[in-house]
């Protein structure tokens, strides 16, 4: 059902945790549907210098959260906003069809965190939907 890459990220998730003085926080999902993830980002010179996550959810929810932190770390905010759900799934070697929309929320959480950062900076208009 899951690729080796998904299981590897599930077993050894990268960047688990919270950033107490985060510059941006994004939460998506809902425990009712079985997936809830929060992404914390630290921004310096327009770059994502640190990123951590907390996730309630199934194997693919945890693996996609871990993967997005790897993909996003060190990237500029603009590059971070360009990472899509499909990129995350591709990097994991694919996800089961049923998981594609319910448990592949990590990109949305990252975008929400960046949006939160912009809002805090008073630059809400810069986020392109």
């Amino acid at each position: 059902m899951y690729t080796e890459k998904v299981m590897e990220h599930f077993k050894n998730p990268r960047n688990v945790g919270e950033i107490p003085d985060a510059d941006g926080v994004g939460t998506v999902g809902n425990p009712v549907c079985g997936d809830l993830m929060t992404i914390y980002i630290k921004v310096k010179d327009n770059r994502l210098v640190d990123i951590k996550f907390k996730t309630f959810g199934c194997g693919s929810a945890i693996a996609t959260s871990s993967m997005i932190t790897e993909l996003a770390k060190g990237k500029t905010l603009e590059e971070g906003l360009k990472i899509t759900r499909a990129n995350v799934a591709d990097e994991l070697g694919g996800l089961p069809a049923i998981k594609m929309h319910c448990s592949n929320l990590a990109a949305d959480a990252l975008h929400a965190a960046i949006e939160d950062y912009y809002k805090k900076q008073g630059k809400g208009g810069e986020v392109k939907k």
Partner: protein
Amino acid sequence: MLLSENTLSAARRVYLDLAAGRPVEPLAIEAMLPYLKSSCGNPSSLHDFGQQAKRAVEEARSKIAALINAEKKESILFTSGATESNNLAIKGVANRNKDRGPRILTSSVEHMSVVNPCKFLTTKGFETIFLPVDKYGFLNLDSLQKELTEKTVLVSVVYANSEIGTIEPIKEISKIVHSKNAYLHVDATAACGHVPIDVKTEGIDLLTISSNDLYGPKGVGALYVKEGVRLEPLFHGGGQEKGLRSGTENVAGIVGFGKAAEIAKAEMQTEIVRLTKLRDRFIDGLLKPIPYSFLNGHPTTRLPDNVSVRYSFIEGESMLLSLDLKGVYASSGSACAAKTLEPSHVLLAIGLKHEEAHGSLMFTLGRHSTEEDVDYAASLMPDIVKRLRDMSPLTPKELKT
């Protein structure tokens, strides 16, 4: 499927998902073999090959009748399994006895092979009411009484729940149902062969039995139909099984089913004692060391082989995968492991919130399960739960490490 590849390196393999699939009893396999090889006759043939097959089928029928104390072996119809038996009972009774009225009553904790035929019939002029259950999964008898009208043709209730193990008060239900002359169908898929069932003293009109659930081969089942209950067949053809289930009999499967039923009957009392002890030891091992952990279903009025628990703040599939990596195979009440996105309707019906239902794990113990097996499985849970809780945004601060 990578789930199994991952476990090749696991130190031990403990299969605790017997409700999903059971090994076939070796003596049943042995009994089946001749009917897969030289004894290839069709029970409908008049010659010796045919009659030999017919005798084997009838012998199996007697064994299954004996298991549930049916009045006679002819009350047993062979089917392809529990799904067909449930469909035959529900659609068969409703369609054949339409004149009684359009109402069908069932509980809100039924298997999908009861839920969906009952829903389907609402497109054919019937009305189905799903009756509530309490927090243990017991049918609400007051609402049964209230909804049971003279126009009720059928009531379908599970004998014991495969997900949460709770055993329904069938005798009491039967008294109520028969007070209005409706028919009572009981889905005994998870119960038959594991706890004593007596269709006569319990007042059951139709009873679904699954072969694999009592260690017989998959692809076979039976429906007990009390004498005098009129049914419309699902299949029309050569008129086998008194015209109620056309199609050449699955002789080898039926023979294996019969042998497995005979063994289940002989071993039932000792297995109930052994498994109940094992079950309670396992439940203690799963719950005691971990805060915010709970049992689903009733603690004592439950199947001896069913263990269903839940852990707050984490999700079932993650636990399932974590156990799989350590060589323990279970099942989850979570949507994510199944084909739908909703958590189990059974867990929601007993009043759990969605996130609680998502945190459920189910195990079934089997004939081969040992104390070492359940102790090993339970010993893995504290680390698994701690790791997932540390990762979860729902975990309260005092539980974090």
